[in-house]
């Protein structure tokens, strides 16, 4: 429960991003290099030009530890890191949540159909999953992102423009389908031979109806446990893609893009990279602990194998 509480707090904080930005009077997506703020009655530039020695370089404002006034300091565009951290969290959470829904939908559908119908259908779907499974996940995600990042996706009437959040959502949603589909297929294979399913088949109930009414409710517990675990995994993937400039595109923020921004400031302003790193670590840990707890609570005997051995 503590893990859930931590995660809910993070979600609430991120949802308050627009309110925080308005209260702080900052636009976290616009460069404000020449902004001057007031701290303790003194005017302080957000970006300070070195005046000593050769006068080389600019240093962004460090953390002021005053909420609403560059609490975590500024990045190299003079933007409020705290405001960007909250907005970034909103995008990271949104992408990981929607990608999780997509993964679960695709994975469940594939697992149900493959497990229930068996035969050629199972062979074809299982091999497709094997192919997807055979690629290193990050390599696959990076490849798909690079292909789509410049021009977007256009399939028939569906067009997703480059820069849209739907691109990382779809890519992350697809690459993790085998992670869900295979355990679901295994469960369906065993349910397929259970008495209540055989009875339904013998009574002539159509397959789709059996899947929907009899089998799906029996895998729901597994799916519920998958939600926090997949979300944690997706959050890590999104951060990695955004860090590599192939996820969320600037000036939009995600925790991954903020780490990337902070990379150029590691020496002078390490907090710009550390803060989103800590946010990711805490969120993922909370989701994993919550997922474990959920699994123990819902079905202590079941063991879900997430990821590869």
């Amino acid at each position, binding site marked *: 429960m503590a893990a859930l509480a931590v995660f809910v707090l993070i979600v609430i904080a991120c949802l308050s991003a627009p309110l925080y930005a308005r209260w702080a009077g900052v636009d976290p997506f616009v460069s404000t*290099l020449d902004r001057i703020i007031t701290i303790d009655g003194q005017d302080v530039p957000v970006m300070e030009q070195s005046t000593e020695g050769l006068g*080389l370089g600019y240093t962004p404002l460090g953390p002021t530890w005053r909420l609403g006034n560059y609490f975590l300091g500024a990045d190299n*565009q003079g933007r409020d890191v705290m405001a960007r951290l909250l907005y970034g969290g909103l995008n990271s959470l949104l992408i990981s949540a929607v990608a999780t829904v997509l993964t679960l939908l695709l994975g469940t559908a594939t697992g149900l159909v493959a497990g229930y119908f068996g035969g050629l259908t199972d062979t074809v779907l299982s091999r497709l999953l094997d192919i997807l499974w055979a690629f290193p996940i990050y390599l696959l995600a990076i490849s798909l992102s690079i292909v789509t990042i410049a021009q977007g996706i256009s399939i028939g009437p569906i067009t997703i423009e480059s820069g849209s959040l739907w691109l990382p959502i779809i890519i992350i949603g697809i690459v993790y389908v085998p992670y869900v589909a295979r355990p679901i297929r295994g469960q369906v294979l065993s349910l397929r031979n259970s008495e209540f399913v055989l009875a339904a088949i013998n009574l002539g109930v159509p397959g789709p109806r059996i899947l929907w009414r009899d089998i799906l409710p029996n895998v729901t517990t597994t799916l519920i446990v998958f939600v926090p675990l997949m979300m944690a995994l997706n959050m890590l993937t999104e951060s990695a893609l955004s860090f590599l400039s192939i996820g969320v595109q600037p000036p939009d923020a995600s925790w991954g893009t903020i780490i990337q921004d902070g990379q150029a400031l590691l020496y002078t302003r390490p907090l710009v990279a550390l803060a989103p790193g800590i946010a990711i670590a805490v969120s993922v840990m909370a989701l994993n602990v919550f997922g474990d707890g959920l699994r123990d609570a819902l079905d202590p005997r079941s063991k879900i194998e997430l990821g590869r051995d």
Partner: protein
Amino acid sequence: MKKLLLAAAAAALLTCTWQAPASAEYLKEHRGGTMRLLARSAAGTLDPHINYTLQYWQIFQPLYDGLVAFRKADGKDGFKIVADLAEDMPAVSDDGKSFTFKLRKGIKFSNGQDVTVKDVVASFQRIFKVSGPTSGTFYAGIVGADKCLADTKSCTLEGGVVGDEAAGTITINIVKPDAEFIDKLAMPHAVILPADTPTEDVGSNPIPGTGAYTISAYDPNKGMTMVRNPHFHEWSEEAQPDGYPDVVQYDFGLTEEAAVTAIQKGEADWMYDQPPTDRLVELGTKYMDQVHISPLTAWWYAPLNTRLAPFDNEKARQAVAYAVDRNTLVNLFGGKVLASPVCQVLPPDFPGHVDYCPFTKDPGAKWSAPDLDKAKQLVEESGTKGQKVTVIVEDNAVSRSIGVYLQSVLSSIGYQADVKPISPNIQFTYIQNTNNKVQMSVSQWYQDYPAASNFLNILFGCDSFREGSDASVNISGFCDKAIDAKMKQAMDLGVTDQEAANKLWAEVDKEVTDKAAAVALFTPKHVDFVSKRLGNFKFNAQFYWIFTQAWVQ
């Protein structure tokens, strides 16, 4: 008192200068040791006829020689061209189409072979045989080059490069007078190699050269070792001086952050890459004596695609030029010490440069401040308000931050803008290809040689635009027939009257700037961070730091 001390110090300094030993004595005193250079990565092929990177052009200076060379001197003296393997500057025919060189005697390649007229002729043929990147531009004017470009393998340059072994002369004939032809001959792509050099890209296998040093080991994933050329003797201090270090070890693989730290600890002597921006304050305060800042004849600019909406509209282009705050960009690059705001194409102190800035709050000679009201008005007048604009930038810290800033500016004047950082390995070719429909990008141009045409004609000449090609360096797709004709006129005029040609180039610069085919951002400066032990730092305006002229002991 302070003034007195200063005067005394200045007098002492002058005395020291006066009594300074000649370079030969310095050479005796400081000769030897191993110099360690660092770069994040290698820069491609070792073939001097093919490699077109600043990183290796700098390396090629003490390795290879052409008939002529840029002087290995400090600052702008490095723009002067001197005879190198040729005994003297060429005798030019009255019509300006024939250049005759007399080859020096007694010069050997690092493999012990004598340099002969045959090597010179074969080297010019090889430029075409290996399809050198500038064979179709710099050297396309040589008689017979058209046949060589059409059929590279059987290139003879018949009538173009004529050797007379008995007289030891080489005559190069060009189809029409070219005021920049000597500059082109001084480029690394025209160095002289042994006649039996393979007529294909040698990749990682070093080719013997005539310079003071030779490559003894090379692994593009690890590094390069340069040692003294055992067959070298100094024939011209200006063209190919002897060097100080016995060995130059150039290691690849360290990040810029790690390279700075290595130099601070004395583990390395110099880094090729620019120090990261978040280390600049530290370097500029704690390591002042080890930092060298040198002006560059270079240009950071944002090409606007004149063939795609919204920038096919001149007013839309001018609006962006008015809106961009160059001071902000200068700050993003590292501050006023490292860059200067500009409005025009030709860099300051460059042939043909006359201060001009129409896109500023108070139009005149210099940029003062952005004029957002004027920019918004122009966007309204152009009827392009609300259109989508994507800015393509390199995915590195400085370019990305410039892209993000430009996105902010475009949004503020009424466009729906976004920015796409893409890998620096592909960004330059990506933005050139019209198939990628790039509306706006951020790019840089560093001169090949000091001539106005190298900026204006290359970047905005009609001939530099190629539809659907990765090699269309006129990224804006700008082609104004009248301006193009004026550029050609200036190039022709340069053959007989360089001063008049420069005046014409100044007009061209003004006209191209007015058309706002690109937004001029700033002129950068170069930062060299060197080790404490390194002495005699000389920055050559043409090929940057002359590393073999520095000592490490």
